[in-house]
């Protein structure tokens, strides 16, 4: 199998087999993360443009680390420093970065569809690192990788997502991916964040229900995905934070309603004490830090598939010959 698209803009168009293929490609890169010398040479001489038009620390660092561990160089554009502040259009900025001849364009933008828009105008692969409230494909993939590792499979799980689903690109990518494996979804949060239309956005036939009582959402859940309360995306008038905590915060008491083996994910950054209590976030059921580690492996797989393409032979990470001479790799293994 090969990855049949030029870009990775969304998980919605990918089939279960294609998603499995990407996750399988990430597997050997997970091994690399445990290796003392983490640097490969697969993308040596290639350049990855990281264009983050919206603030991000974790995702940008994760892609930068992934590129570096594959041997690629990176070009960085960050919102504050960019000429967007000077009135340049997104298309002009993208064309200018492209004129510096990167081999792949990883972008985050506050507008839904921004990556799709740029991909229509560029000829190099575009990776959507989060577009508005649409999708966050690499997050959806790393979440699935984490679930698959912990649970053993992705099939027919009960997935509960808590929080502002309407404005969550992570939730959409989770639904589009896990829905392809027969998972059932319970979406829970205040009514204005959980519109009924969400029940119809998944793969055809995906059972999605919207509930407004957290107790109802937790029972029978195999996986609980807690979303960050995104104050920057709240539409006025916004909800009272104390009401949110009262009704929806994931705490130890409420966790008693869930299965004892239920897995807790959070795309980060966590607002401790708001959507989740520290004891739950740091407890044994939480896979929050595994998600971060898996993020690097997943993004290595994405860059590898888009920039090289899987070949028939062995996976490059299986014949690990980390470039011991590289300074970066020495630092990375500190």
């Amino acid at each position: 199998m090969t990855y049949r698209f030029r870009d990775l803009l969304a998980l919605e168009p990918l089939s279960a087999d294609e998603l499995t293929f990407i996750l399988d490609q990430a597997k050997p890169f997970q091994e690399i993360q445990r290796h003392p010398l983490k640097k490969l040479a697969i993308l040596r001489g290639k350049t990855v443009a990281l264009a983050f038009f919206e603030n991000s620390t974790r995702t940008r660092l994760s892609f930068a680390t992934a590129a570096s561990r594959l041997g690629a160089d990176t070009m960085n554009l960050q919102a504050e420093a960019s000429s967007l502040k000077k009135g340049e259009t997104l298309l002009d900025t993208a064309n200018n970065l492209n004129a510096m001849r990167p081999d792949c364009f990883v972008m985050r933008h506050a507008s839904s569809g921004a990556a799709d828009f740029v991909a229509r105008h560029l000829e190099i692969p575009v990776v959507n690192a989060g577009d508005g409230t649409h999708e966050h494909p690499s997050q959806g993939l790393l979440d699935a990788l984490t679930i698959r590792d912990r649970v053993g499979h992705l099939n027919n799980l009960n997935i509960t997502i808590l929080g502002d689903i309407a404005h969550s690109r992570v939730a959409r990518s989770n639904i589009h991916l896990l829905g392809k494996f027969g998972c059932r979804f319970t979406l829970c949060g205040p009514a204005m964040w959980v519109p009924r239309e969400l029940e119809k956005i998944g793969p055809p036939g995906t059972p999605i229900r919207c509930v407004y009582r957290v107790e109802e959402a937790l029972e029978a859940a195999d996986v609980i995905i807690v979303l960050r309360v995104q104050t920057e995306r709240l539409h006025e008038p916004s909800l009272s934070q104390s009401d949110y905590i009262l009704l929806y915060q994931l705490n130890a008491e409420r966790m008693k309603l869930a299965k004892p083996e239920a897995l807790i994910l959070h795309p980060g950054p966590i607002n401790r004490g708001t959507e989740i209590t520290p004891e739950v976030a740091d407890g044994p059921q939480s896979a929050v830090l595994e998600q971060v580690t898996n993020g690097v492996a997943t993004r290595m797989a994405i860059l590898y598939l888009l920039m090289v393409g899987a070949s028939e032979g062995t996976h490059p990470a299986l014949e690990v010959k980390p470039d011991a001479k590289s300074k970066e790799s020495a630092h990375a293994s500190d």
Partner: protein
Amino acid sequence: MLLIKNGRVIDPASKTDAVRDILLDGETISEIAAPGKISRANGAEVFDATGLVVAPGFIDMHVHLREPGQENSETIETGTKAAARGGFTAVCCMPNTRPVNDNASITRFIVDRARVHGHVRVWPIGAASIGSKGEDISEIAAMRDAGIVAVSDDGKPLATAKLARQIMDYCRSLDLPVIEHAEDVSLAAGAVMREGIASTRLGLAGMPAAAESVCVARDVQIAELTGARLHIAHLSAKASLEQVRFAKKQGLHVTCEVTPHHFTLIDEDVTYDSRFKMNPPLAAREDREALLAGLADGTVDAIATDHAPHEPAIKDVEFDKAPFGILGFETAIGLALEQLVHTDRIPVMRMVELFTTGPARVLGKERKLAPGEPADVTIFSLDRPWTYHVKGSASKSRNSPFDGRTFKGGPAATIVAGKIVHPD
């Protein structure tokens, strides 16, 4: 003199649907008779309309010509040229130019520019409030004397119920229609498409149908209060249409128009391509069905394009940052035939009415083919296949979602004041 020979004359005013010859003499219609029966036609230029429909000149009562102020997107010259190509002989240009057409000197500027550079008749619409800011009433009487045919704060609704009441009261005394862009701006704030499954899937902020219909409900009640002539622009929601239907049953002077894009496309057609972004946004499937029913049963008075050109530099951007609006002139007849006539939803007579007597009545005008009437004629084909290529558009802009669409039937010739303005 121009003799239009052998066309299928469809004239809603006289309920004519028959093959006729029409003789135009100067700027007026001179004679209409059975084929070959016009004796004074010797020496007249002949337009052979065999196999074509010959109708009174089409009116587009809702357009944006962008002059003065945004001439990179359109001018009166290019906009009226596109209108002529689309089969329109008269267009009503909305006042949201820069500066806003809220005084008689801007109105006269538009009228004068149109007289010199216009390919079709231009009937300006004046701003209801100064700067369309929703505060004080503009000099409506002075603008009427300069040539406006209606008032509107289009692009925005009449800002408050109180202003709507005052404008409607005043315009009733001036015998002018009030055209309302019905939108509750608080419900629509931040939205870039219709709220629904499609907007939820795309992660684009949506406005509910109620953003339009609550404003229509308000205005219908104020029309009842004042007795004014209220016209709802670009009506898109089923609930709004029901308000208009109710108002008509009460005998109120309430009318409405529907755009070709709203009776053709729905929210599920929206992609991240900003050529699918306009306000009101593409509505739900059931809204479109309701509009089609309203076009057939007479609840809808006019088809208007809301031709809204935007140059690529401002339109070809991220979906949520792009301005609202799409081109409309050149595809209107093609879409009306495709969606309404070829599907047997309405007869050609009714379609012609929606482009002629319908909008004329809203504006307090007449539109008919009869001796002594202005020689404005729209000639179109019912079956000739053609493909719309927006790069060849007469408009200065390129923002059409119908680029590349193939139509069955479309505009063949446009005659204004006895002169063939399309094809030139």
